[in-house]
């Protein structure tokens, strides 16, 4: 017996993601999904961002890691609501976990939820978690060929943050080749070149965030 199915394999995750998106839209909460390799600087970027947003936007964080609470504990001193999800080996976060994490927040008091996804350029890009947009976080020390090697993330992301630009002179990173490869994949994505450690270029990231939050949030 042959049955025509024509069903999205990730239907269950997608349905939950659509529910999450609906709730966030109704509450006028911006959710940003930070995706990048381990060590690209996602947590450091969050530290800088939370500090900058103090008094401007109410922030909450969903922190995803295979194991440990190290990143969550780094963010604790900033005194924002944080939920840590240890995935016990899974390489990405899925929408069901995000929905349950969001249920622990009072979304009426939050403007922006940052999801720091599991460190991985591959799998997190495959799974919609109901976010407004993915932000690709990569770093100079990973090499300039990552967009070509991991096209799905760079194609889907609404913004790209290239971190550790202060280390360019110590590597073979070709900035022109990198920006050109990103433009070929996604000609409209804003590319922001920063150094979290040296606090260079962060103003471009903050400007993108504020402009986006201004459009999405309840009380920008």
């Amino acid at each position, binding site marked *: 017996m042959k049955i025509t199915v024509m069903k999205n394999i990730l239907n269950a995750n997608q349905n939950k993601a659509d529910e999450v998106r609906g709730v966030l839209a109704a509450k006028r909460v911006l959710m940003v999904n930070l995706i990048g390799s381990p060590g690209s600087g996602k947590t450091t970027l969050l530290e800088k961002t939370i500090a900058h947003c103090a008094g401007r936007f109410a922030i909450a964080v969903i922190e995803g890691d295979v194991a440990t609470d190290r990143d969550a504990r780094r963010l604790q001193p900033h005194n924002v609501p944080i939920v840590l999800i240890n995935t016990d080996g899974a390489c990405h976060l899925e929408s069901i976990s995000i929905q349950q994490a969001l249920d622990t927040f009072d979304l009426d008091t939050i403007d922006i939820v940052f999801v720091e996804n599991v460190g991985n350029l591959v799998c997190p890009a495959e799974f919609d978690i109901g976010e407004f947009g993915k932000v690709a976080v990569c770093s100079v020390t990973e090499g300039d060929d990552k967009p070509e090697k991991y096209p799905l993330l760079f194609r889907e992301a609404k913004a790209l943050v290239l971190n550790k630009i202060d280390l360019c002179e110590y590597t073979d990173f070709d900035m022109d080749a990198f920006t050109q490869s990103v433009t070929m*994949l996604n000609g409209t994505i804003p590319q922001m070149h920063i150094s979290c450690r040296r606090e260079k270029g962060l103003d471009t990231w903050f400007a993108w965030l504020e402009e986006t939050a201004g459009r999405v949030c309840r009380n920008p």
Partner: protein
Amino acid sequence: MGSACHGTRTTFCRAAGLVPKRPARPVAKGLQTVHEFSIVESILDTLGELAGKNRLARITSVTLTIGRLRQVVPETLRFAFEAASKDTVAHGARLELEFVDIRARCTTCGAKFRVENNYYICGTCNGTSVELTSGDELIIQSVEGEEA
């Protein structure tokens, strides 16, 4: 491992049970760390539902449509499917994979083109704003099985 941190607003979710429990399917050690495993789990859930609704004793083949933008390694997918389908209605099923090219449409001039070598710029007007028309599919196209 995991505990609620009293006096702070940090919640450790293993204690709160926020990590969804995965079905106890037999899989090779470490296989759950690849996303093909999540994909296979979703496929097997659907196959189980289809078998129940259509009174199938076993599934003999599954045809998937996979867009080339998806980061699915065929060998890993097959390995995950074989490992995870043991003791299920899909044990021994043949997995047919049909791949779909990445195609796009320029939103500036409307030109349609096939994307090659990650080049998403319109060849007609050099526009950089394009939308995908195919290539990101991850679909169960059809299933064959033996009726009970």
